[in-house]
């Protein structure tokens, strides 16, 4: 019967799938879940490059526990469900001692919560939402959270003498966090946020949102945007004449600078996480030699450092035993680990205590850091 044949084929397929065993290797493996498809795929690519370079560096310096380090990278598809699928695979099949991941807060939080339930060490290499702090006991961040970065931005904006600003941010976990935290710090420091407009990403025009912020008549516009959206916003602001006499300030400016043509971003300034710390120069030159271009985003460096941190923790623990690794991470967090983004120290909640931020201004196509 046809149906029976189908059912048989179906069963065979399942059997086959279940039967595929993981490749056993002599290496020490850790896991990483990053977005290699979906909206954040470019950042994911940058993260995977950072990981690759870190593995090279660790192995050139003797590896981990006398063996070679290997990172199994899994795609999160930019979705919480797929991210958790990937983490479950890494934990229960590959039996990795540490999982690094993800990029956007909406995925990092559920991913981290699952790992915490399993008592697994989780290292967040990118998500800056304040909610990351509450993920749980075995979750750590090698990147500073929103409250730290927006405070820096608020101070920077005030230092320029702009007291009344309009805020434009994307309507997702990241944008909502930035808008809320920025307002909090800016108001506390004596500034005024005249209006906050949240925009949906992926639109073909942002004129409505731009005219909305224009109506508030601020001293300056503060915004945050991903690559091509940032480019469109800047272009339309230019076309609407909103750049004439009014300064624009970009929070995490490296996200959008590369995609924006020079004519639409004259005089743009902003801030970003310093993707280069004291030991960052060698990382930058290695990256450029290996991939023939400059950084795709600010987050490759953090993924790089997450791997360095994990490798250092494993070496310190002397084994891949969970309890020993967790203890080693706590100790390392106090002692500090040197990475491409500077020295990484963790506070009592396992979050990075301080990190370098840089002020940037646009000169032609390029971003230049200034003091």
């Amino acid at each position: 019967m046809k149906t029976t044949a189908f059912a048989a084929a179906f069963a065979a397929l399942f059997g086959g799938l279940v039967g595929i065993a993981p490749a056993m290797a002599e290496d020490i493996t850790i896991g990483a879940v990053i977005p290699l498809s979906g909206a954040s795929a470019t950042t994911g690519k940058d993260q995977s490059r950072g990981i690759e370079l870190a593995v090279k560096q660790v192995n050139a310096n003797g590896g981990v526990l006398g063996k070679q380090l290997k990172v199994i990278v899994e795609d999160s598809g930019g979705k919480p469900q797929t991210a958790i699928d990937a983490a479950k695979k890494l934990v229960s099949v590959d039996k990795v001692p540490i999982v690094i991941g993800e990029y956007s807060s909406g995925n990092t939080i559920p991913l981290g919560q699952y790992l915490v339930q399993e008592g697994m060490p989780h290292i967040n290499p990118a998500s800056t939402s304040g909610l990351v702090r509450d993920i749980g006991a075995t979750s750590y961040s090698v990147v500073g959270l929103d409250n730290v970065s927006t405070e820096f931005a608020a101070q920077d904006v005030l230092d320029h003498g702009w007291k009344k600003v309009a805020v434009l941010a994307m309507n997702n976990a990241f944008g909502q966090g930035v808008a809320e935290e920025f307002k909090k710090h800016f108001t506390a420091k004596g500034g005024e946020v005249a209006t906050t407009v949240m925009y949906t990403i992926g639109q073909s025009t942002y004129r409505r949102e731009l005219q909305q912020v224009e109506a508030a008549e601020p001293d300056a516009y503060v915004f945050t945007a991903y690559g091509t959206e940032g480019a469109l916003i800047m272009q339309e602001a230019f076309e609407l004449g909103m750049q004439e006499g009014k300064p624009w300030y970009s929070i995490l400016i490296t996200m959008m600078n590369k995609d924006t043509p020079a004519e639409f971003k004259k005089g743009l300034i902003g801030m970003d996480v310093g993707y280069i710390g004291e030991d960052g120069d060698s990382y930058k030159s290695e990256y450029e030699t290996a991939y023939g271009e400059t950084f795709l985003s600010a987050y490759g460096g953090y993924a790089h450092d997450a791997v360095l941190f994990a490798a250092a923790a494993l070496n310190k623990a002397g084994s891949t035993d969970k309890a020993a690794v967790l203890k080693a991470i706590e100790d390392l967090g106090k002692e500090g680990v040197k990475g491409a983004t500077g020295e990484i120290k963790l506070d009592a909640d396992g979050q990075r205590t301080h990190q370098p931020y840089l002020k940037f201004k646009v000169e032609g196509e390029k971003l230049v850091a200034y003091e």
Partner: protein
Amino acid sequence: MFDFFIHVASIACLYGVLALSLNLQAGFTGLVNFGLIALFGCGTYGAALASGMGWHPLLGLPAGIAMAALLGLFYARLGRKLSSDYWGIATLSIAEIIRISVTNEQALTGGAQGISGLPLLFAGLKPYDGVARLALYAAVLALVWLFCQRLVKSAFGLSMKLMREEPQLARSLGYDLDRIRRVVMLVSAAIAAFAGFLYAHYLTFVGPDQLVSPETFLIWSMVIIGGIANNRGVIAGAFLMQFAMAYVPFVKDALDLPTDFVAAARLIIVGGGLLAFLLWRPKGLFPEKVGGSNGR
């Protein structure tokens, strides 16, 4: 490996329940619903609401089902005025409106950051909690399947199929099409919300990213590949798709392929699989059995 298998099977069971819900609408009644995920979302946010308000977690279930029932009735009401293709577009846009509203209602829903920290079902049974959950989900799937089978084989089921095939004839024979649509939407909305409730207490996180329209189309692809208007078929479709997607990374590891392969392969499985079935086997793996209603 075993834990991972349990996990994938658990999710597949929940997708199976969703596929059965869509099958009642699209398969048997001809209601082309592109907004299924919003009904599912009522269930997940019902669970989140109970957690946020500090209620007993079980109260999230009636809350979710009540919201889904209202939404289902609204969908059905729209169906009185619109022909089926326009109705499909309307459901798609309503689901999107709901997702965007949820993203913006930060005070109530946590906005884009979602609501996390829901209690995990059977967390106390560690290390057997995964097996316990799978057993529950499988039981739920079996019950829903049994219910759907009985429903479509009943006299009401025949009227559903008549409405799908010949709405004018059905009306001329005195069937109340609005009532049929209403009942089908109510029942299938409750089923979808139930799946959402279980899903929320499995993932322990609820967010608007779970309600994007590609999720609806994933369920559609399960239904079409498995066999539309065949309850056994759509469950097979759900398991096949979920396992194929979840096991792609192992193919990558076994063949030592780059991780980019996984992303591409998943897209090909959903899009290519759907296209291939529509072209060469439009009735799916298990085609509908015509006249198979207990000899009625």
